[in-house]
């Protein structure tokens, strides 16, 4: 099996998605891969913008620095759509991810809820491997 080359990881600001980013940075560091951190802009975000497409949020920049991650291999992407559709699109150009990474539960989800679970939907429809990072994941760098 080829090692990771291009990892796409979903980020919505939730603690679980932050853990997913941690895992992605760690795995990419070890494999010398690139990481695209992608934020899906939903309908309601037109009313209240959360993230600038031009600037990595400070909390993610700080994470990248914590892992001493080469910023030239880190991309921040803000794109329109629901989280599931946006992540699935990452397997295609221009990102061409070979691995998708998601947290086990996203922003605003109820515990145990299956309906609307991004991780389940992505796992069901993805054409590339998907890593679902549990909320209990600890990598020692935290």
């Amino acid at each position, binding site marked *: 099996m080829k090692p990771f080359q291009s990892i796409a990881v979903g980020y919505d600001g939730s603690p679980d998605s932050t853990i997913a980013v941690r895992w992605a940075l760690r795995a990419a560091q070890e494999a010398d891969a690139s990481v695209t951190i992608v934020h899906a802009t939903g309908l309601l975000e*037109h009313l209240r913008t959360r993230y600038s497409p031009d600037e990595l949020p400070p909390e993610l920049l700080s994470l990248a620095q914590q892992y001493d991650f080469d910023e030239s291999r880190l991309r921040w992407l803000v*794109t329109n759509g*629901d989280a599931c559709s946006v992540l699935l699109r990452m397997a295609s150009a221009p990102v061409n991810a070979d691995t998708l990474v998601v947290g086990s539960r*996203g922003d605003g989800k*109820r515990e145990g809820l299956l*309906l*609307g679970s*991004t991780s389940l939907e992505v796992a069901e429809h993805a054409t590339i491997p998907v890593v679902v990072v549990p909320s209990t994941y600890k990598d020692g760098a935290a």
Partner: protein
Amino acid sequence: MALVINGPYSDSGHEDEGHPERPQRVVAAMAAVADLRLGSDLVVAPSYSASRAELVRVHNGNYLDELGAFCYAGGGNIDPDTYATLDSWTIAQYAAGAGLKVIEELQRRKDGVGFVAARPPGHHALADRAMGFCLLNNVAIAAAALLSQGERVLVLDWDVHHGNGTQQIFWDEPNVLYVSTHQWPLFPGSGSVIEIGGRHATDRTVNIPLPPGATGDVMRRAIDEIAHPVIDSFKPTWVLVSAGFDAHRDDPMADLRLTSGDFAMMSEFVTTLVEGPGRVVFFLEGGYDLRALRSSILATLSAALGQAHEAETPSNGGPGNDQVERLHAARQSAIETRWSAEDTETTQ
């Protein structure tokens, strides 16, 4: 001419405080209907809950079971945009049934114009997933019912957001033509001009992405040059309009610059697309500024009914005019590439 609307059904149980997709939207829509002062020309089709058989033409059975169970357990947030409450499953089934009943009444009368003022809206709902405020795809459920009767259905979607759910559901269906005008880039991110339908339905999806700030003249030119020839060649027997009004310049959810006068012009155009009366139905999708929603619905329905009405002046002068030719060329190129690939496969 009569206007056939859906019967009253309380949707007050589908509400999340502060959310723009709220019950007052239907109140505004019904106020627009009242503004028409139709008297006995207003026909109310009784409220009706769509059956499972009618829903599974479009939606995955497991999804319906999950959605129902989720609502009965009290509901909650399905995703950061989309909510459901204890009552949402029942209300969504009535919203889906509303379109079916309006169509049934139009078929019985063989005359009139239909308007489905029901919520939650539907055009983002996928076969197996709720999203973008939408739980069940009302317009797709209606189109599927007509399809089962051998009809050829044009779904014209002028909501400011691309109707990704409707497009996905009929992606490979040759007897449904899906035409969408929408702002791009914008949620849900789909709706590129090179999305032309599946292998069995090449040229049955027509997407017209418009830049922020685009005005009615740009939309009309793009429809005329890109979509109109496809519609003419498709020869629809029914036209269902995913009538969102969030492309209005006052709407907070997007950045197109349409006025109620533009919707009136679009509505007039729609009525020319099908032969015979009683075959056009408008389905409420988006539209979140209540004043703009009311005036736009009034303008739309007045025009469809052939009533005189003073709407806002149609808009013009926005960006995008110079893109129309390029969009058309890109679409034609995608179609030719598809045909050429199929020819190659056939000869191999």
